[in-house]
């Protein structure tokens, strides 16, 4: 058994491809825990960032700067009474949030955090991802129906109308990116998520800059459609608070409601990952071909450590700026400990970066490589997550017929045009 476990360690492919279920399971657990933590963190960041957009402070009471607020919320939601309305379809009501959650989490099996840092490298990865992530809408529709109540029903109705209008444009945008992967010697493209990033590596350009502005246009269309897919502002008509009180999850409370929220944030991370993989070079650091000297490798591998160092520094400034009354003593200590943990992680990452800088086979080198891949991937996704918050703070909400109008009359023709022109340009250049 240990041999079976150890045999994977030298491998350069994903555990799914190597047929190693043990490591696949470990990866699944790591990703599940990582996404759960990311959702908690996102919850806090969204509330803080939104608050600062809106000249307020946001959560400040639970823990220093409200850092423990998401945990407090999670505990509160779990302890709440579990209500199923008497008129609801009990079984469907019960299963609806699970559909959404399942759809949001299943996509993570093919998201490539690095060339071997994924659960599995499916050869139809992108197809699988689009298919499964669209299933999330089923959870919304079903929950609206099962609630047997008017507002959720209208929310579900909007959600299904919304889906048909953006999915087509979204699919065509993805196809134009897949077309670009076939611009190699053999002339065959790939649907594998890892293959798509490797194609960008071989062609030496992120697809967002390929055939400018074709790649960029496809990316923008996808970036708009993915907001609609995750039901976020300005396309949050399915839960439109001011219109439908809470839309499809009006009748939900407690743990079930929190599952919807978990699914929503997990889906946001998932679709951002698709965008990063298809157009922004996935796990690749900036300029891997232009600045390919080992010295550059070393400099870029310092980034993860420096990022955490910066976070630790910001946190320490926060500690220093806290009022010195005894009332804040515990909070000061807590924040200082948090800063120390961040600093320790930074130190660890820097040590790994330095230790693994030269030798290509040592354990430290493999670690450094893996950390680099995951770091750049997560950084790019984080930019998207920030954009999600920014949109929410800035824009009013679209009406659902207007979204359909945009989907069918603006985005669909553009994405179709981009697809055709990309094909023509690709034929000319290959």
């Amino acid at each position, binding site marked *: 058994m240990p041999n079976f476990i150890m045999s994977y360690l030298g491998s350069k492919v994903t555990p799914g491809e190597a047929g190693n279920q043990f490591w696949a399971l470990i990866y699944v657990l790591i990703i599940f825990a990582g996404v759960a933590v990311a959702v908690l963190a996102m919850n806090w960041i969204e509330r803080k960032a*939104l608050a600062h*957009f*809106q*000249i*307020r402070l946001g959560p400040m009471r639970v823990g220093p700067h409200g850092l423990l607020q998401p945990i407090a919320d999670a505990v509160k939601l779990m302890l709440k009474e579990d209500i199923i309305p*008497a*008129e609801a379809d009990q079984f469907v009501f019960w299963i609806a949030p699970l559909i959404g959650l399942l759809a949001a989490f299943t996509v993570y099996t093919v998201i490539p955090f690095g060339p071997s840092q994924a659960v599995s490298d499916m050869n139809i990865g992108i197809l699988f991802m689009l298919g499964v992530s669209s299933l999330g809408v089923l959870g919304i529709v079903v929950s609206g129906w099962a609630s*047997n109540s*008017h*507002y959720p*029903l*209208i929310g579900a*109705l*909007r959600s299904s109308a919304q889906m048909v209008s953006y999915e087509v444009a979204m699919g065509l945008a993805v196809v134009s990116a897949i077309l670009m992967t076939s611009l190699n010697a053999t002339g065959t493209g790939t649907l594998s998520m890892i293959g798509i990033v490797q194609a960008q590596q071989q062609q030496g350009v992120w697809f967002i800059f390929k055939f400018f502005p074709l790649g960029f246009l496809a990316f923008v269309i996808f970036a708009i459609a993915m907001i609609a897919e995750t039901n976020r*502002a*300005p396309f*949050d*008509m399915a839960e*439109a*608070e*001011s*219109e*439908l*009180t809470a839309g499809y999850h009006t009748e939900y409370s407690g743990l079930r409601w929190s599952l919807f929220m978990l699914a929503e944030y997990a889906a946001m991370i998932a679709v951002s990952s698709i965008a990063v993989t298809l157009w922004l070079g996935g796990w690749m650091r900036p300029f891997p071909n232009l600045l390919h000297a080992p010295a550059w490798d070393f400099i870029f591998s310092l980034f993860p450590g420096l990022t955490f160092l910066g976070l630790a520094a910001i946190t320490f400034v926060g500690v220093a700026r806290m009022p010195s009354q005894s009332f804040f003593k515990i909070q000061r200590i807590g924040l200082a400990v948090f800063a120390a943990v961040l600093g320790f992680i930074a130190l660890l990452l820097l040590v790994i970066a330095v230790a693994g800088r030269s030798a290509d086979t040592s354990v430290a080198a493999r670690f450094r490589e893996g950390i680099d891949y995951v770091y750049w991937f997560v950084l790019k996704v984080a930019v998207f997550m920030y954009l999600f918050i920014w949109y*929410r*703070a*800035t*824009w*009013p*909400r*679209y*009406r*659902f*017929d*207007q979204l359909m109008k945009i989907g069918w009359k603006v985005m669909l023709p553009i994405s179709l045009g981009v697809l055709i022109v990309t094909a023509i340009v690709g034929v000319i250049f290959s």
Partner: protein
Amino acid sequence: MSERTDDQTNDASNRALSSADRSYLDLDTSDKTYLDSNELVINMGPQHPATHGVLRVILKLDGERVLGTECVIGYLHRGVEKIAENRTYTMFNPYVDRMDYCAAVSNGLGYCEAVEKLLNVEAPPRAKYIRVILTELQRIASHQLWLGTHALDIGAMTPLFYTFRDREEILKIFEKYCGARLTTHAFRIGGCQYETYAGFEKDVKNFLAFFAPKIDEYETLLTTNRIWLERTRNVGVISAADAIALGVTGPVLRASGVQWDLRKAQPYAAYSEFDFEIPVGTNGDTYDRYLVRMEEMRQSMRIVEQAVNAIPEGPIMGKVPKVIKPPVGEIYHSIEAPKGELGYFIVSDGSTQPYRLRVRPPSFVNLQALDIMVRGLLVADVVAVIGTIDIVLGEVDR
């Protein structure tokens, strides 16, 4: 749910529908199934985030399209008009603040002027100027509140916080002047009770300088925003003829292209002495109403600036007897409140208490236009239109 409670629910919803309107909402009470493929009748409110209080709108929907609406009001009814019959004229003065609690100063101005007209006394010039300054500041504050909540209804969260930040400065001036922020009771019959505090003029001028760039800040977020344009243009259109027929007043009427502002049409207080314009819209849609109110804030600033620069010296209280006993008679006096024409009709029997006091609240009358404006639109537009009419339920129900 048992059969019995089912009947009760249907009875309750039937009772809410007045017999005249039952025909077009056409609730089939014999049908016990729900979620069928027919029209959907849903209750929006009285507990709803976007009905600005306790307004209940019964919507009849085909999918999301609105076939008809009915407003059910009265959830905030406090019998203000009846209370007036049991209070002396002076005692009733603070009650009017509680009608449109977002524009308490304007309410007070209307009431005080109506009683003054009945008594045939006039407030001294200085009092009139103070009244104009505070009323126009109140108009700005009311429009700020409207803008924030209206934008929030349409989904833009951020303007709400900006407008509340700036409204705070106005409320501070009110608090310094009369000690209250919301229900101010700023004026008395015959003038003002309080002389302006030291630094009042400076505070007002500071506010004007502070606020001028803030309006532009609101406008950068909304005026040319594509989504805002799509959500407000051609939404809730009401023609000038319809508006006049329904008695709609205020910015809603002006956005339809009717240049009707009581400050110009029948000047009261000291308005005839100031130079300002009446912004008018052309299409009568939600976007025009937005533009009209934004421009009104600018015009109000102009009025305040002129008034604060020319504020005369002198007494602030007219010759009003200690016990107010108006002669037998009746009077109707109306002012241009932030939301429209606010009128007071007072019948005096010569005693210390009004025989009858009737308020013509702008929100109540303007709310009638809701049905005309939203028919054929979508549910999302209903909240936009409720926001754009700018109702305050305290005033609708009184």
